[in-house]
């Protein structure tokens, strides 16, 4: 059982990719650690800097993690420049994996 697990909503990256597309991978440790790629997005090549908004949640990916790591780079023959980026996330109350049990203390109701 884990508390403090983050759910990722989206990623916004300001970048410049020339010669070939770039890529960005979102890696997390949940479920089933170790850290591995849970989402792969493309940073489309163009002229000048541009903003990519990768909506992780609404594209069917349900990505959670306590540890989050990002990997970005150019495809073969390209040049990728990263200027800035951000993610949006929220903390889930209780996150359970298969077979895990959440159990409260025996409580008196006024104390909950």
């Amino acid at each position, binding site marked *: 059982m884990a508390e403090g697990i983050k759910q990722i909503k989206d990623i916004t990256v300001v970048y410049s990719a020339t010669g070939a597309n770039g890529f960005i991978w979102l890696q997390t440790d949940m479920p089933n650690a170790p850290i591995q790629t849970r989402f792969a997005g493309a940073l489309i090549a163009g002229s000048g800097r541009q903003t990519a908004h990768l909506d992780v949640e609404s594209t069917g990916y349900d990505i959670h993690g306590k540890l989050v790591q990002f990997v970005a780079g150019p495809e073969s023959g390209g040049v990728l420049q990263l200027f800035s*980026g951000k993610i949006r996330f929220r903390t889930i109350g209780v996150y359970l994996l298969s077979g895990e049990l959440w*159990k409260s203390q025996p*409580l008196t109701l006024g104390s909950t």
Partner: protein
Amino acid sequence: MLWIAREVELVVDTDAPGRFTVSGELPGDHVAPRRSVVFDTTATTPGRRVERFRLPGNFKFQLIQFEFLASGIARLYSGRIFAKPLGAAGAWGWYALPIPPTAEGWQEAALPIEPTPEAWTEAALPILPTPEGWEEAALPIPPTPEE
């Protein structure tokens, strides 16, 4: 204080069936399961869902315990129980289950990318500076003696 409870409500998202159990210590003075339900929100909706279930009509307790056993990934967002104290003037009310709260909104965090300044920074090229004035240098002519 003795309580009576009627209903439990959970906001939950499961990828497989999960079992939610409510335990109390009456009758018998030991905490034991009094109501257990299995549900699976994937059968109805891909996201979170509000699950409600009734408790036995004679369910009374001083101590109450909640547990949820997952058979796949499950997320508990919040929960509450509809209860009232017995023998007191208290009315029916909803009481929160001890599930850490899940924020309704989203937080932001910057990716660890070195910031790019908006302005340009100057740096001199490695070209030796040219002095504004003139320097003198003697021509390589041997001096002519005066005598």
